[in-house]
């Protein structure tokens, strides 16, 4: 996983609250056998509307999603995180995230930064006035800024550490390779392997 310290990019204003994971990626996209390519399912129902914000050329290439409250509710699907990441998002800002979505994001390396709703409103205004305004998310200092708007954001300490170190769950466990190796050395010899048939 890439490490995340400071990110600067343009932002998309998503003026909707209670965006559930079925909206983020509808179930019909879950049959895929790959992990990439989920960007075409991202907000699939809404994207049928040519006026939907992601369809506006001014917001092409954005990497920060500024969303309404209660983002990521509904069923736990890691595909929701993959869809946002495959599309190119590195950060989602909201005043409130659903717990499971937040957990899945942390595991997948997508930053969910929580700011007060006033800040969301101010950011919406800033990026609607000028879609090209650079938004900087400084995970080290826990500060988001866009033009005049500057705000601290909340992020779980553990998730922050992991993102800054660029460690996913597996990466963390792999740091224990010596302990795992030690355990393996002490496993009884009668335990089976799938390859050698006696």
């Amino acid at each position, binding site marked *: 996983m890439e490490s995340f310290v400071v990110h600067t990019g343009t932002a998309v204003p998503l003026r909707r609250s209670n965006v559930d994971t079925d909206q983020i990626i509808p179930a019909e996209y879950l049959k895929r056998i790959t992990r990439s390519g989920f960007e075409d399912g991202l907000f699939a129902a809404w994207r049928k509307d040519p006026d939907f914000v992601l369809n506006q050329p001014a917001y092409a290439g954005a990497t920060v999603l500024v969303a309404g409250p209660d983002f990521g509710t509904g069923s736990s699907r890691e595909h929701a995180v993959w869809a946002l990441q495959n599309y190119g998002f590195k950060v989602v800002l909201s005043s409130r995230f659903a717990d499971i979505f937040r957990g899945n994001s942390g595991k997948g390396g997508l930053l969910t930064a929580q700011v007060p709703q006033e800040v969301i409103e101010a950011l919406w205004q800033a990026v609607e006035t000028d879609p090209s305004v650079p938004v900087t998310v400084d995970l080290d200092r826990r500060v988001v800024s866009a033009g005049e708007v500057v705000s601290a954001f909340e992020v779980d300490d553990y998730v922050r550490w992991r993102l800054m170190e660029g460690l996913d*769950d597996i990466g963390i466990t792999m740091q224990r390779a010596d302990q795992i190796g030690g355990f393996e050395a002490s496993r009884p010899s009668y335990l089976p392997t*799938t390859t050698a048939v006696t």
Partner: protein
Amino acid sequence: MGRTLAEKVWDAHVVRHAEGEPDLLYIDLHLVHEVTRPQAFDGLRDSGRVVRRPDLTLATEDHNVPTQDIGLPIADPVSRAQVDALRANCAEFGVPLYSLGDVEQGIVHVVGPQLGLTQPGMTVVCGDSHTSTHGAFGALAFGIGTSEVEHVLATQTLPLKPFKTMAITVDGDLPPGVSAKDVTLAVIARIGTGGGQGYVLEYRGSAIRSLSMEGRMTLCNMSIEAGARAGMVAPDQTTFDYLEGRPHAPSGTDWDTAVAHWRTLPTDDDATFDAEVVIDASTLSPYVTWGTNPGQGLPLTGSVPSPDDARDEVERVAIERALEYMDLAPGTPLSEIPVDTVFVGSCTNGRIEDLRVVADVLRGRKVSPAVRVLIVPGSVRVRLQAQAEGLDTVFVEAGAEWREAGCSMCLAMNPDKLAPGERSASTSNRNFEGRQGPGGRTHLVSPAVAAATAVTGRLTAPADLSPVA
């Protein structure tokens, strides 16, 4: 204080323990099938990782495979893509795979035990909820999600929070004609589909000790349908006898060392469980489900319940909805419900012992002309064994279809499906809406009830069949 079976297995696999963090648990056996999300392998590839222990990993093809004309390419493109992806991933990462056509192919939860790969005291995982089956050997075995599959592939470990323990004690003698399937349906009807949530169930008591390994596997298999994380039975002489001489079982002095260790695994007398359910075996009789979850079951001698029987509003709505989907009227005797299809098979009841029970009922009888009867062995080995015993002849002479190994009609992912509105008596584990095909209706039954139902065309216990002339 004493430890339970589950706790002993857990303790023996902790690689790392730190306050406030999940334990890092070593995994002895990781099973894989083609529906185990290929994304897990993609994840490895994307981060340049390898499978740490391909020699503790085993893959089979089961969910999508056809059970007829297996020499032909798989017709459904989605199914074929999943199988192809598994083959490519196994080849790339060096994971042993038993493909369609191989003598060791079959349902992953049938193949592991029959090879002797599932042994007492092991930790076993698979990206499949019915991994609980392997608990029959006194292994701690549970299903895991996509990112966990990737974690195990890369590290052979999983960070886990401890489970709670629940004893399911079944004492006394099971009446004749009552099988492990009836016990499990009775347990789930009793504690509900959420009753086991957060628990590892340990099945105990004299009725459990008297079950064969096949019966214990049926019981542990269905633990997940009570919401439990896993089910377990302590290893005993029945377990050792089943394992001895299997291809991957220990041999020579290793065998003696292993058995000595296995004998230390049963729950200590002074250990305590977080919860306990006690069932008197002598009160049990053949069970069938009438509704759309495995907890909606009753003795076959009973009648379809009425929403008025509900204990609360939630249950009332659930009964109403189930009756509507199942197209059943309250008060109908369960033994008068006609079926179109009988399915014998799945990781719950697709083993040799199950097929023997079915053959015993069908021998000298004919299946009802109104019923399509599918008998699907859980693995190629089971199929060959049944043929060696002449069971296939019994099935075919009775008018049943004898198929190749796979998950088949347990779930509608391959060509074996119910048509909308069709009704089955099925030895599988899930009677959810549409599980066996969109609009299909499922009654879960034991192999003996499935066979008797095939003869009469309505839900029937073997004891109610007229004797063979």
